[in-house]
Protein backbone atom coordinates (compact mmCIF):
# COMPACT_ATOMS: atom_id res chain seq x y z
CA UNK A 1 0.00 0.00 0.00
CA UNK A 2 2.84 2.41 0.85
CA UNK A 3 4.57 1.66 -2.46
CA UNK A 4 1.28 2.27 -4.24
CA UNK A 5 0.84 5.63 -2.51
CA UNK A 6 4.39 6.75 -3.34
CA UNK A 7 3.68 5.88 -6.96
CA UNK A 8 0.33 7.57 -7.39
CA UNK A 9 1.16 10.72 -5.44
CA UNK A 10 4.47 12.46 -6.21
CA UNK A 11 3.86 14.81 -3.30
CA UNK A 12 4.32 12.01 -0.74
CA UNK A 13 7.61 12.70 1.02
CA UNK A 14 7.71 9.87 3.56
CA UNK A 15 5.49 7.18 5.03
CA UNK A 16 5.79 5.74 8.53
CA UNK A 17 3.95 2.98 10.28
CA UNK A 18 1.91 4.01 13.30
CA UNK A 19 2.22 1.53 16.14
CA UNK A 20 -0.64 1.06 18.55
CA UNK A 21 0.75 -1.32 21.16
CA UNK A 22 -1.52 -4.04 19.79
CA UNK A 23 0.29 -4.61 16.52
CA UNK A 24 0.18 -8.40 16.88
CA UNK A 25 -3.61 -8.39 17.08
CA UNK A 26 -4.89 -9.71 13.74
CA UNK A 27 -7.95 -7.47 14.03
CA UNK A 28 -5.88 -4.32 14.22
CA UNK A 29 -5.72 -2.24 11.04
CA UNK A 30 -2.44 -1.27 9.39
CA UNK A 31 -1.87 2.40 10.17
CA UNK A 32 0.18 4.66 7.92
CA UNK A 33 1.35 8.19 8.64
CA UNK A 34 1.91 9.87 5.27
CA UNK A 35 3.85 13.12 5.03
CA UNK A 36 2.62 14.96 1.96
CA UNK A 37 3.94 18.23 0.55
CA UNK A 38 1.03 20.67 0.24
CA UNK A 39 -1.31 18.61 2.44
CA UNK A 40 -4.17 20.46 4.05
CA UNK A 41 -3.17 21.39 7.59
CA UNK A 42 -6.08 20.50 9.83
CA UNK A 43 -4.42 18.31 12.44
CA UNK A 44 -4.54 14.57 12.70
CA UNK A 45 -7.48 13.09 10.80
CA UNK A 46 -7.34 9.28 10.77
CA UNK A 47 -9.42 7.86 7.90
CA UNK A 48 -10.27 4.16 8.01
CA UNK A 49 -10.55 1.75 5.09
CA UNK A 50 -11.92 -1.75 4.85
CA UNK A 51 -9.89 -4.49 3.17
CA UNK A 52 -10.01 -4.24 -0.61
CA UNK A 53 -8.88 -7.61 -2.02
CA UNK A 54 -9.59 -6.43 -5.60
CA UNK A 55 -6.77 -3.91 -5.16
CA UNK A 56 -4.57 -6.39 -3.33
CA UNK A 57 -5.26 -4.96 0.13
CA UNK A 58 -6.17 -7.85 2.40
CA UNK A 59 -6.25 -5.95 5.70
CA UNK A 60 -8.14 -2.99 7.12
CA UNK A 61 -6.10 0.20 7.19
CA UNK A 62 -6.03 3.69 8.61
CA UNK A 63 -4.35 6.57 6.79
CA UNK A 64 -3.23 9.77 8.51
CA UNK A 65 -2.05 12.39 6.02
CA UNK A 66 -0.08 15.36 7.37
CA UNK A 67 2.08 18.16 5.98
CA UNK A 68 5.86 18.22 6.59
CA UNK A 69 5.30 20.97 9.17
CA UNK A 70 2.69 18.89 10.99
CA UNK A 71 5.06 15.93 10.91
CA UNK A 72 7.71 18.02 12.67
CA UNK A 73 5.10 18.98 15.26
CA UNK A 74 4.23 15.32 15.82
CA UNK A 75 7.92 14.54 16.24
CA UNK A 76 8.30 17.44 18.68
CA UNK A 77 5.28 16.31 20.68
CA UNK A 78 3.26 19.46 20.06
CA UNK A 79 0.75 17.70 17.78
CA UNK A 80 -0.18 14.51 19.61
CA UNK A 81 -2.28 11.64 18.32
CA UNK A 82 -5.69 11.45 19.98
CA UNK A 83 -4.96 7.89 20.98
CA UNK A 84 -2.21 7.86 23.62
CA UNK A 85 -1.05 4.44 22.53
CA UNK A 86 -0.19 5.50 18.98
CA UNK A 87 3.46 6.15 18.22
CA UNK A 88 5.37 6.90 15.02
CA UNK A 89 7.10 3.73 13.88
CA UNK A 90 9.58 2.78 11.20
CA UNK A 91 9.77 4.58 7.88
CA UNK A 92 8.67 2.65 4.80
CA UNK A 93 10.57 3.08 1.57
CA UNK A 94 9.22 3.59 -1.91
Amino acid at each position, binding site marked *: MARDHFQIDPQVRRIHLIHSGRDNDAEEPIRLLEVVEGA*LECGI*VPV*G*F*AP*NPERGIAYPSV*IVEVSPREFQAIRAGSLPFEQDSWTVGEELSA
Partner: protein
Amino acid sequence: METMVTEEDRIWVRGYAKQALSDLAAREILVHSKADRCHRLHFLQMAAEKTCKAHLTAANGHDNLRKSHAYVAKVLPNLARAFFRPSGGGEQIAQWELAKIAKLALEIEVLAPACDDGGSRLDNTEYPWQDAQGRIHVPCEHSFAGIDDSEKNLVRLIKLMRMALAAYAA
Protein backbone atom coordinates in the same frame (compact mmCIF):
# COMPACT_ATOMS: atom_id res chain seq x y z
CA MET B 1 -28.43 41.12 -4.56
CA GLU B 2 -26.80 40.38 -1.21
CA THR B 3 -28.56 37.83 0.97
CA MET B 4 -29.10 38.61 4.63
CA VAL B 5 -27.94 35.68 6.76
CA THR B 6 -29.72 35.69 10.09
CA GLU B 7 -28.81 34.29 13.48
CA GLU B 8 -31.30 31.49 12.84
CA ASP B 9 -29.45 30.69 9.59
CA ARG B 10 -26.22 30.44 11.56
CA ILE B 11 -27.86 27.95 13.92
CA TRP B 12 -28.88 25.88 10.86
CA VAL B 13 -25.30 26.05 9.56
CA ARG B 14 -23.92 24.75 12.87
CA GLY B 15 -26.62 22.06 12.91
CA TYR B 16 -25.75 20.75 9.43
CA ALA B 17 -22.05 20.88 10.24
CA LYS B 18 -22.35 19.01 13.54
CA GLN B 19 -24.53 16.33 11.97
CA ALA B 20 -22.09 15.93 9.06
CA LEU B 21 -19.22 15.46 11.52
CA SER B 22 -21.31 12.84 13.28
CA ASP B 23 -21.97 11.09 9.92
CA LEU B 24 -18.22 10.99 9.26
CA ALA B 25 -17.63 9.53 12.72
CA ALA B 26 -20.31 6.90 11.99
CA ARG B 27 -18.51 6.02 8.74
CA GLU B 28 -15.35 5.32 10.71
CA ILE B 29 -17.27 3.06 13.11
CA LEU B 30 -18.79 1.19 10.16
CA VAL B 31 -15.36 0.69 8.58
CA HIS B 32 -13.93 -0.77 11.76
CA SER B 33 -16.97 -2.96 12.41
CA LYS B 34 -16.73 -4.43 8.88
CA ALA B 35 -20.11 -3.16 7.72
CA ASP B 36 -21.03 -3.65 4.08
CA ARG B 37 -19.68 -1.10 1.61
CA CYS B 38 -23.12 0.37 0.92
CA HIS B 39 -23.41 1.54 4.55
CA ARG B 40 -19.95 3.12 4.56
CA LEU B 41 -20.77 4.93 1.33
CA HIS B 42 -24.20 5.91 2.62
CA PHE B 43 -22.71 7.79 5.57
CA LEU B 44 -20.10 9.38 3.31
CA GLN B 45 -22.89 10.57 1.00
CA MET B 46 -24.93 11.95 3.90
CA ALA B 47 -21.90 13.74 5.35
CA ALA B 48 -21.10 15.26 1.94
CA GLU B 49 -24.70 16.42 1.44
CA LYS B 50 -24.88 18.10 4.85
CA THR B 51 -21.45 19.69 4.37
CA CYS B 52 -22.77 21.24 1.16
CA LYS B 53 -25.95 22.37 2.91
CA ALA B 54 -23.90 24.04 5.65
CA HIS B 55 -21.86 25.82 2.95
CA LEU B 56 -24.92 26.98 1.02
CA THR B 57 -26.86 28.03 4.12
CA ALA B 58 -23.88 30.10 5.30
CA ALA B 59 -23.90 31.92 1.96
CA ASN B 60 -27.60 32.20 1.11
CA GLY B 61 -29.62 31.50 4.25
CA HIS B 62 -31.73 28.48 5.10
CA ASP B 63 -34.89 29.68 3.34
CA ASN B 64 -33.07 29.60 0.00
CA LEU B 65 -31.91 26.00 0.39
CA ARG B 66 -33.56 23.74 -2.17
CA LYS B 67 -35.29 20.61 -0.89
CA SER B 68 -33.06 18.29 -2.83
CA HIS B 69 -30.26 15.75 -2.47
CA ALA B 70 -28.58 17.01 -5.63
CA TYR B 71 -26.05 19.34 -4.05
CA VAL B 72 -22.86 17.44 -3.85
CA ALA B 73 -21.63 17.39 -7.47
CA LYS B 74 -21.88 21.17 -7.85
CA VAL B 75 -21.16 22.41 -4.36
CA LEU B 76 -18.25 20.23 -3.18
CA PRO B 77 -15.89 21.63 -5.86
CA ASN B 78 -16.94 25.16 -4.85
CA LEU B 79 -16.30 24.28 -1.23
CA ALA B 80 -12.87 22.98 -2.23
CA ARG B 81 -12.07 26.31 -3.90
CA ALA B 82 -13.18 28.17 -0.78
CA PHE B 83 -11.46 26.05 1.87
CA PHE B 84 -8.46 24.45 0.22
CA ARG B 85 -5.38 26.17 1.60
CA PRO B 86 -2.46 23.93 0.77
CA SER B 87 0.47 24.01 3.16
CA GLY B 88 3.77 25.22 1.76
CA GLY B 89 2.58 28.50 0.34
CA GLY B 90 0.15 27.66 -2.47
CA GLU B 91 -2.88 29.89 -2.60
CA GLN B 92 -5.26 27.87 -4.73
CA ILE B 93 -6.27 24.31 -5.21
CA ALA B 94 -4.51 22.69 -8.16
CA GLN B 95 -6.70 21.97 -11.18
CA TRP B 96 -5.89 18.24 -11.12
CA GLU B 97 -6.91 18.09 -7.45
CA LEU B 98 -10.13 19.96 -8.21
CA ALA B 99 -10.91 17.61 -11.10
CA LYS B 100 -10.49 14.60 -8.80
CA ILE B 101 -12.80 16.13 -6.21
CA ALA B 102 -15.41 16.97 -8.86
CA LYS B 103 -15.38 13.40 -10.22
CA LEU B 104 -15.67 11.88 -6.76
CA ALA B 105 -18.38 14.39 -5.79
CA LEU B 106 -20.54 13.35 -8.76
CA GLU B 107 -20.18 9.68 -7.83
CA ILE B 108 -21.08 10.46 -4.21
CA GLU B 109 -24.15 12.45 -5.26
CA VAL B 110 -25.67 9.60 -7.27
CA LEU B 111 -25.35 7.26 -4.27
CA ALA B 112 -28.54 8.89 -2.95
CA PRO B 113 -31.62 7.05 -4.27
CA ALA B 114 -33.25 10.36 -5.22
CA CYS B 115 -30.31 11.25 -7.50
CA ASP B 116 -30.38 8.89 -10.46
CA ASP B 117 -28.89 11.20 -13.12
CA GLY B 118 -32.04 11.16 -15.24
CA GLY B 119 -32.69 7.46 -14.69
CA SER B 120 -29.25 6.36 -15.84
CA ARG B 121 -27.90 5.73 -12.34
CA LEU B 122 -30.31 3.66 -10.33
CA ASP B 123 -27.57 2.17 -8.17
CA ASN B 124 -27.80 3.60 -4.67
CA THR B 125 -26.79 2.72 -1.14
CA GLU B 126 -30.26 2.30 0.39
CA TYR B 127 -32.88 0.50 -1.70
CA PRO B 128 -32.91 -2.39 -4.17
CA TRP B 129 -33.32 -1.31 -7.79
CA GLN B 130 -34.19 -2.93 -11.10
CA ASP B 131 -31.94 -2.49 -14.13
CA ALA B 132 -33.02 -2.20 -17.77
CA GLN B 133 -32.76 -5.98 -18.19
CA GLY B 134 -35.19 -6.52 -15.32
CA ARG B 135 -32.54 -7.72 -12.87
CA ILE B 136 -33.00 -6.62 -9.28
CA HIS B 137 -29.86 -5.41 -7.48
CA VAL B 138 -29.41 -5.14 -3.71
CA PRO B 139 -27.14 -2.43 -2.23
CA CYS B 140 -25.53 -4.72 0.35
CA GLU B 141 -24.47 -7.09 -2.46
CA HIS B 142 -23.42 -4.40 -4.94
CA SER B 143 -19.75 -3.55 -5.50
CA PHE B 144 -20.19 0.16 -6.38
CA ALA B 145 -17.23 -0.30 -8.70
CA GLY B 146 -17.83 3.10 -10.32
CA ILE B 147 -16.80 5.10 -7.28
CA ASP B 148 -13.08 5.51 -6.79
CA ASP B 149 -12.93 5.94 -3.03
CA SER B 150 -9.37 4.67 -2.85
CA GLU B 151 -7.26 5.85 0.04
CA LYS B 152 -5.60 8.90 -1.46
CA ASN B 153 -8.79 10.35 -2.95
CA LEU B 154 -10.92 9.84 0.11
CA VAL B 155 -8.40 11.03 2.69
CA ARG B 156 -8.11 14.37 0.87
CA LEU B 157 -11.86 14.75 0.51
CA ILE B 158 -12.60 13.89 4.13
CA LYS B 159 -9.88 16.26 5.36
CA LEU B 160 -11.35 19.02 3.22
CA MET B 161 -14.85 18.36 4.51
CA ARG B 162 -13.65 18.27 8.11
CA MET B 163 -11.80 21.54 7.67
CA ALA B 164 -14.95 23.23 6.36
CA LEU B 165 -17.13 21.58 9.00
CA ALA B 166 -14.85 22.66 11.84
CA ALA B 167 -15.32 26.26 10.66
CA TYR B 168 -19.08 25.93 10.26
CA ALA B 169 -19.67 24.01 13.51
CA ALA B 170 -17.84 26.59 15.64
